[in-house]
């Protein structure tokens, strides 16, 4: 009887965090909620802890089935396994886990600033940047560029079906950056005018490719065709252990929203929300682990999971 109540609490904590701080990454909110769940878990063994955490992560992905939450869940599980390998005594282990969890959360809250510091020198004075949909990391990078007194202009795609681009344009106007919203279909038209493309990512896969809002692949292909650098900014907790070879390989649970998955009869009639961009189209990835070429991403993932 405890379990369902705890899970309901978990969902509530997760939702509350997203409500109170719209700037927080959904993965960070998920990890914070899972850490809270861990604190009040009353199990006595590592196995018990793992299974209740697995249940918790499943519940969370039924609320928000995005890639970011899934990668956060996997990272947290890995975190538990690594820590439990070092300490055999369960209560000590749990203490250390909670302590390290707090440190981890503190470090990732700094990750956006680290990325902004790495990325803004790549934006030259007078640059014209193309970005896609709404990304808080890209926003932070552009903010850092403004702070270092650079002048540049931004083109944002409207990004249907939720018009996320309008939200991005509004946020950019607040920073006094000249911004133009363009149709998703106008990317090929506008590409000759831009100097670089800068997008965020919902997930970074093992091959070094990214999973991001639908439309990103198109932009990458156009950028490659016209020889424009395509930069991706993403925090390191977004690295996932997927290796899609094409668009079909991306699991359905990431492509569609959680509610759609539950209610829809025929998924082929739904529009996917994300697409996969292959690493050959990406020039550089800016993460809090440093500036990486796409081939370096798999190395990072191996270091973690092996």
């Amino acid at each position, binding site marked *: 009887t405890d379990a369902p109540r705890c899970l309901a609490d978990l969902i509530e904590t997760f939702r509350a965090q997203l409500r109170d701080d719209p700037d927080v990454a959904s993965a960070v909110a998920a990890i914070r909620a899972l850490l809270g769940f861990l604190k009040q878990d009353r199990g006595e063994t590592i196995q018990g802890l793992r299974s209740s955490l697995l249940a918790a992560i499943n519940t969370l992905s039924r609320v928000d089935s995005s890639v970011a939450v899934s990668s956060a869940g996997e*990272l947290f599980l*890995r*975190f538990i396994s*690594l*820590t439990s390998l070092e300490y055999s005594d369960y209560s000590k282990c749990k203490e250390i886990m909670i302590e*390290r969890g707090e*440190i*981890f959360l503190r*470090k*990732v809250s700094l990750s956006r600033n680290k990325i902004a510091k790495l990325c803004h*020198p*790549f934006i*030259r004075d007078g640059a014209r940047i193309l970005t896609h949909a709404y990304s808080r990391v890209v926003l932070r990078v552009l903010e850092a560029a403004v702070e270092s007194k650079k002048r540049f202009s931004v083109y944002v795609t409207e990004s249907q079906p939720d018009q996320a681009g309008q939200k991005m344009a509004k946020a950019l106007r607040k920073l006094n950056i000249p911004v133009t919203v363009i149709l998703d279909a106008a990317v090929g038209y506008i590409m000759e005018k831009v100097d670089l493309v800068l997008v965020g990512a919902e997930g970074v896969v093992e091959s070094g490719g990214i999973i991001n809002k639908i439309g990103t692949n198109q932009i990458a292909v156009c950028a490659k065709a016209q020889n424009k650098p395509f930069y991706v900014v993403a925090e*390191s*907790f977004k*690295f996932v252990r997927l290796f899609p070879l094409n668009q079909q390989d991306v699991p359905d649970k990431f492509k569609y929203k959680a509610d759609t998955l539950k209610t829809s009869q025929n998924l082929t009639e739904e529009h996917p929300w994300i697409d996969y961009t292959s690493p050959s189209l990406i*020039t*550089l990835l800016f993460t*809090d*682990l*440093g*500036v*990486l*070429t796409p*081939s*370096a991403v798999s*190395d*990072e*993932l191996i*270091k*973690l999971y092996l």
Partner: protein
Amino acid sequence: SGELMDLIRTEGRRMTAAQPSETTVGNMVRRVLKVIREEYGRLHGRSEESDQQESLHKLLTSGGLSEDFSTPYPLLRANVIEAINELLIELEGTTDNIAMQALEHIHSNEVIMTIGYSRTVEAFLKEAARKRKFQVIVAECAPFCQGHEMAVRLSKENIETTVMSDAAIFAVMSRVNKVIIGTKTILANGALIAVSGTHTLALAAKHHSTPLIVCAPMFKLSPQFPNEEDSFHKFVSPQEVLPFTEGEILAKINVHCPVFDYVPPELITLFISNIGGNAPSYIYRLMSELYHPDDYEL
């Protein structure tokens, strides 16, 4: 050792500010800093396998404290000096190490193209010439025409050499089997900063699907990224391009004489260095072994 590192860092900054295009100065400072960190770590009792690099793994398992270099160790000085001597020996042997790999890459009756003058490529070709017969075409690399000196040195070793102008690079490329060049700097994404004219050579090679091999020792690998595309440029006196005697014309035009060229990593096939042959996409890994990420910005 924290003080030692700060001292070295300040000196390094001064030296790189004096001559920014000589990136090897900064690279060596970073190598020394890495040596000091390693020796300190060894004395501090940290295990050899522990990774100094930032990684996801480290994020999850660290206890939170970052390395504090304030504990004094009397043995540290001797260890660091020994390690630096090893580094010196390695540096002195780089050209020979690269030349030793020549036989694997150059086959008989091949036509090799190169540009300008590079000591590394000269040693590489000379070593291959001892056992194989091949031809070399040297692009003269205007306006300084160092290609002429390269051709003279190569022909002294009885290698059949042809000199041609830079404009003929594309025309001749269809008869070339391999392009072997040296470089000034290797950037962190696998790109090159090489002598002016190299980008043309690389594009022509790509068009004809000719492999482009870069012979460069590891100390030329610099952890910088090509962020501001024009920031690495060094311009010298335009006297070489258009002599000052042409005063009437000079008053009406702008003359530039850039020394370096940027070559993107997609155009390069292989890097041959003193530690072996590597693809450009692997450069990030070599860099993580040579330098510590905290030292990328001196």
